[in-house]
């Protein structure tokens, strides 16, 4: 099918292109142009035409947690948020530690033909941190990387061996670095706010100690390692130094942590119960700055749909996480605007940079690239409320906020998969 997207402001972060123009799509790919009459024309006047967003952390809750969300609901949410590719962490039930599970998830996702799904396989069996998974088999089934999700490996011997084994085959390892002992029982940043609210704290060095260990193992093993969802200023500094040293590392930050801090807990707002916890304003500022200067490669939604009953609980008992697929674009735009970044640079963190980490050819608008595109109105604002969200998870600290950036059309492989109203 031939598709013409006419007269939009075309922003391609990979090349820095930002100009009004047309985008031609043929056979699921972007092409330079075509002579014949397009089968479909989309008038993009007044809209931004950008590569579809690539979200490196989105929980779809299948298999196992269908009561929290289903693949259908969350894939709807993804395309409504302009997300055309997403990586899902392995903390499903059972975890993604067997090729059969991964294969089924890929098939189910593919049958829905919305966003592309890239499963991240479990690094250890049942995420228990004891036995390695069959990484080669899992990679054949479609896993793009291996991770422990939010369950750190405590046995450093196992972590070392897992990294060695992954490096043998060139598989990337994704780690959310947290020292399990230091984080034990904690539910909030160990600081002034947790002290006032009487919440058990997680000290910032629970993260930096784990990153320090992991970086030494990266140096020893050469494993391509992606650090997920940094939360502290110290972590940003350590990754900056590691990159300078030339270690094969990258990292991301959850978009909530770029905007919110411990102060947003207010009177024990369970919507702000996140993993890792929201930290101090200083940490938040360092994350926002690190994302701007490229120390942090990507922003992710860390989409985690939680049912209302699990949030209507005292803070410490509430299930952690926030819905995020539909908020990623507006929150990234808000961050870019606050830091006075160009639109291309702003979007790079959720498109071309994420594509580089994921090792895929999408995330750019150039001849030959997959036609995964989002058309959005950067000025149109909308109110975050349950009815406005397609995700089954309505849990977000941003409930009631007015956010600018409304997705109008989402295209995956040249097919329109979402249109606003």
């Amino acid at each position, binding site marked *: 099918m031939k598709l013409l997207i006419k007269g939009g402001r075309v922003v391609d972060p990979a090349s820095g292109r930002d100009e009004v123009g047309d985008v031609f799509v043929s056979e699921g790919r972007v092409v330079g142009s075509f002579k014949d009459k397009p089968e479909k024309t989309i008038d993009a006047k007044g809209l931004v035409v950008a590569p579809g967003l690539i979200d490196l952390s989105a929980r779809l809750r299948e298999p196992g947690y269908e009561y929290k969300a289903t693949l259908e609901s969350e894939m709807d949410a993804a395309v409504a948020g302009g997300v055309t590719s997403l990586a899902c962490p392995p903390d499903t039930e059972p975890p993604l530690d067997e090729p059969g599970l991964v294969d089924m998830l890929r098939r189910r996702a593919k049958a829905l033909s919305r966003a592309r799904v890239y499963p991240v396989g479990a690094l250890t069996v049942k995420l228990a941190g004891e036995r390695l998974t069959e990484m080669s088999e899992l990679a054949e089934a479609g896993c793009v990387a291996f991770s422990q999700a939010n369950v750190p490996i405590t046995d450093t011997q196992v972590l070392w061996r897992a990294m060695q084994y992954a490096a043998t085959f060139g598989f990337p390892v994704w780690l959310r670095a947290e020292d399990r002992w230091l984080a034990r029982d904690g539910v909030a940043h160990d600081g002034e706010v947790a002290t*006032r609210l*009487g919440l058990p*704290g997680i000290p910032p060095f629970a993260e930096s100690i784990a990153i320090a260990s992991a970086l030494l193992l990266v140096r020893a093993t050469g494993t391509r390692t992606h650090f997920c969802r940094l939360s502290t200023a110290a972590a940003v500094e350590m990754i900056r130094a590691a990159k300078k040293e030339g270690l094969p590392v990258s990292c991301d930050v959850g978009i909530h942590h770029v905007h919110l801090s411990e102060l947003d807990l207010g009177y024990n707002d369970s919507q702000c119960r996140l993993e890792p916890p929201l930290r101090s304003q200083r940490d938040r500022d360092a994350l926002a700055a690190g994302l701007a200067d490229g120390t942090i490669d990507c922003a992710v939604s860390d989409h985690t749909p939680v049912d209302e009953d699990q949030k*209507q609980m*005292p803070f410490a008992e509430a299930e952690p996480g926030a819905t995020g697929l539909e908020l990623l674009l507006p929150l990234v735009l808000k961050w870019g605007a606050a830091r006075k970044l160009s639109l291309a640079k702003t979007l790079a963190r959720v498109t071309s940079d994420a594509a580089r980490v994921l090792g895929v050819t999408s995330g750019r608008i150039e001849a030959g690239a997959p036609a995964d595109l989002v058309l959005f109105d950067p000025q149109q604002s909308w109110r975050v409320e349950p009815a406005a969200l397609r995700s089954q998870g309505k849990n977000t600290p941003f409930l009631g906020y007015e956010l600018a950036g409304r997705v109008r059309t989402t295209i995956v492989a040249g097919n329109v998969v979402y249109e606003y109203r």
Partner: protein
Amino acid sequence: MAANPQLNANGELQHLLSIEGLPRDILLQILDTAEPFAGVTEREVKKVPLMRGKSVFNLFFEASTRTRTTFEIAAKRLSADVINLNVAVSSQSKGESLLDTVANLSAMQADVFVVRHASSGAPYLIARHVKPHEHVINAGDGRHAHPTQGLLDLYTIRHYKKDFGRLTVAVVGDVLHSRVARSLIHGLTTLGVPEVRVIGPQTLMPAGVEALGVRVFHDMRAGLKDCDVVVMLRLQNERMNGPLLPSAQEFFKNYGLTAEKLALAKADAIVMHPGPMNRGVEIDSPVADGPHSVILPQVTFGIAVRMAVMSIVAGN
């Protein structure tokens, strides 16, 4: 941040959830209201009709005998009907959610819920979901707050020391896990106590505790010097040996209150303890029973203060 959940549209006390965030006037209103009630508790007929026909539900998700009993006595002396629910062993163990439990009790026409819960912030959650005429009083939530204990401590201090404006008050022991300490510290700073100290090892101090407006001492002798009021905190058994402390004996050696250490405080210093005491762990018996101790009067004042709180919220 949302509006102060403790106050109604007129700025009056709707719920008592925490001393933090309450204006000075309301704290003083509670203390002043408690004064005549302290007299009631000494009369032969210990009852006033202020809450006749009202129902007070004691909702204890965490076991407690002492606090529940004092709330029960306070409510009965106000002529309210009291219903004690030991939720820890009933509906919660059957899997009912916190809010469902509250909704069910609310359907039984409650006026005041007295809530104790092991999780910090639970009373806030309940307060957000009760009907406008219902009031929530926090009887202790996790490590967060125990406002009626804080208020009775303030009442006791005012009773013996009259003026808050010149005092030095030391809070000693396990500040990390103590809701009593947090509530008292907020009350003392709100009422203008110029020096509030916390004394204990680093392992029992919460992060950034200075931000509450206190001076931190790790040396008990230095911390007690010239104090007017010494508040000892209870050390829970399970914390006496492990990663926080090596033993009860060593804790007592460093942070237990003995007559010798108390001598460093002012000659007329008072010694307080929220109970129940661990004699020989945080406090030596001769001090607990000695002339400086006001630990038993605290219990008596506690009833008057809880009467004051219940009558004020029920009247708003």
